[in-house]
């Protein structure tokens, strides 16, 4: 077991536990965008930064990727952490204002304005979809391309990949995505599975939304109406 202190409280955790897991176990809230249990930690969004160390040599690290160390002193809500977190949310809000997840986080941290030039992007490149596709769906259909400001996520050469099963898991997990499966508009339907099942899901009440990764399943929503 590894002993560390989080916000002054002593904690014992198993080896290999991340600081984020330890802090959440103790009930300290740390906001995250790119972290999901069941997917490998990545450390892209930097929202989960915490301050570690003591005295003048403290530094900020992303708690989702930092493993608990013996004797580590962690502060999850110091003024330096809060200042960084607020600036990150302001940057997120400036780039991706439509996302409900980001709006909620910003509101929770009482961000009242953003001072940058407003952009309307969809993707924050948190990489959740890439890891979901690789680690849970075993497909590796999408990945990162380019670097710096030209970085994007997509399929190789922007051609529909053979390994993509149109499962929709990438959209399901996306914190910023505006795209949703809309069965009613065939070109935006993700997999069309609900229609192609025998008997079609939308006609019989057999399958319910258990067959669909979309939440809520659009076809099911239509049925309920």
């Amino acid at each position, binding site marked *: 077991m590894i002993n560390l202190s989080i916000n002054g409280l002593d904690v014992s955790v198993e080896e290999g536990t991340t600081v984020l897991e330890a802090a959440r176990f103790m009930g300290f809230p740390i906001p995250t965008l790119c972290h999901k249990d069941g997917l490998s930690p990545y*450390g892209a969004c*930097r929202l989960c930064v915490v301050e570690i160390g003591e005295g003048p040599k403290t530094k*900020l690290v992303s708690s989702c990727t930092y493993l608990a160390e013996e004797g580590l002193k962690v502060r999850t809500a110091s003024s330096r952490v809060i*200042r960084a977190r607020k600036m*990150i949310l302001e940057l997120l809000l400036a780039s991706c204002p439509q996302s409900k997840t980001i709006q909620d986080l910003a509101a929770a941290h009482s961000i009242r304005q953003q001072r940058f*030039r407003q952009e309307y992007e969809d993707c924050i490149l948190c990489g959740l979809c890439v890891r979901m596709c690789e680690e849970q769906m075993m497909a590796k259909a999408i990945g*990162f391309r380019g670097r*710096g*400001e030209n970085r994007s996520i997509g399929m190789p050469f922007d051609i529909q990949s053979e390994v993509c099963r149109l499962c929709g898991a990438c959209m399901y997990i996306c914190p910023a995505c505006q795209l949703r499966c809309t069965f009613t508009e065939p070109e935006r339907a993700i997999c069309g599975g609900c229609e192609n099942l025998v008997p079609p899901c939308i006609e019989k009440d057999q399958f319910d939304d258990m067959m669909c990764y979309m939440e809520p399943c659009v076809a099911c929503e239509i049925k309920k109406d």
Partner: protein
Amino acid sequence: MESLKSIDNFKALQERLIADRDLATPTIVIPAGTCGQACGANDLIRITKRELLARELTEKIHLRITGCHGFCEMEPSILIEPQETFYPNVDPNNMVKIIEAVARGKVLEDLLFVDPETGERVEKKDQVPFFKNQVRTILSRNEKVDPIRIYNYIETGGYSSLAKVLVQGNPAWVIKEINASGIRGRGGAGFPTGVKWELLANQPDGRGKLLICNADEGDPGAYMDRGVLEGNPHGVIEGMLIGAFGTGATEGVIYVRNEYPLAIKHMIIALRQARELGLLGEDILGMEFPFDINLVKGAGAFVCGEETALIQSIEGKIGEPHQRPPFPVQKGIDGKPTAINNVETWANIPVIIERGAPEFAKTGTKNSSGTKIFSLVGKIKNTGLVEVPMGITIEEIVNGIGGGPAGKVKIKAVQTGGPSGGCIPARIFDLPVDYKSLTEAGSIMGSGGMIVLDENTCMVDVAKYFMNFLKDESCGKCFTCRKGTQRMYEILDDISKGKGTLTHLELLEELAHVVKDTAMCGLGQTAPNPVLSTLRYFHDEYIEHIENNHCPAGVCKELITYSINENCTGCLLCLEGCSEKAISGKKKKRHVIDPDKCIKCGVCKSICKFDAVDVM
């Protein structure tokens, strides 16, 4: 090439080579590194070869083609040994004359270097002010060695440090020696090399250990590592061999950026020769010491100079840094313990072993020992690679070795450490160059880039340039680094266009501190340095841009206008030179620039002989 089976074999070979050396015969040394070749060294080599053959002088005059000697401003240059006569900026048309003079043992006075201060001709290379004030431990090897001939390296004392280490036969002694020398990593962060090796040596030996030579030198205007790799590849190999013996590593990787074709070529040849000679392989010099080195070419990403990204790149993955700890020395390539050092650090290792740690530690300061190579570029008279002891002041480098400003305009600042570094203003040029004082001044030592800026350089523009570089070269994994550099660029761009406000300036500083705090790797953590250091030392220049919409250096295009003053003699030169036909006027009448057509390219100002073009 015979394969050496034991240390005695090697020593016999070395003694034979040294005995066969012919130091009395005049030798024409032509530096043909990338810079030399670009300036025409290949022509000189061709002419020399042709003339020596045609005049049947091959026995009387020798030719040695080496890597860069460092004085790039004077390329293509020639050195005549053993007299050490230095001919700068050699015109191919004069080459035949020089060969004739060498054959007759004469010196061509009128082609010698002119000391700009005294106006006198200087014959010997060591008397040239640029070379005189340096301590050339690493770079001096470049003159003596033909990089593609291993015998050349051995006869000048090469691989004797390795033999010394193997004879000692005690890895712990090697690490103790490196620790005692006090050498710190030359790649920028300045981590003590001995400590790093000790950590690697103490790792469990189960799966094999690796050494990496980081030659992914990406800083704009910096080429120290290229100079060393091109000129002295065996020095790096020898350093890695000594490191392998000390740490128990069995594999080595040299990660070179693909933009250095000559360095790659020389290194591949050097590796092959070392392998043929039995200095690399399963059983080095019969000492049951296995070590081999592979060369991996980078694919052009600046971030791959960061060690965790470099490892990812070698593994064939996307070049993205990841969280440390675990440090590479615990978990590197394929999970094996890996130590990464810079080219210059590796090149220093044989020197430490050869001279002994106490002797090495005498150069430099207490906390930063040894010499450091800087690439001195920008608005300076003597551009080139300079090697100086640590702790020397910037003043001595810039005005002493560098020879002061290139033009009439005063030097304003030096940018050190590449894109992650900062600007140091001229008023604190008495600052000693070592890891600590540069960091305190808001810059970093970095790998050794030193860009000199004069009064015609706008500091907002400098910060904008580096931010533009970084927003392209950030890997994009960390949101704050990716978006932060983009937003900083956006704000700097606004300021340089006169659209900035004081609130922008506050936001810029606030953002810079957050990016510094929250990024994962060294690139992101140092990315705001150009902004923070220019804000710290040149705040008034930012204010001038914002409040008066005025660029004091006359660089930011949106804020300047070109006009012609009463000095104009009506010579028509600028009128003909203007690509936009924005200048009108008649002969012997003062010309006028049409501000609507002017694209502010500055051609007229550079053409004008009468100082008649004003930039407001």
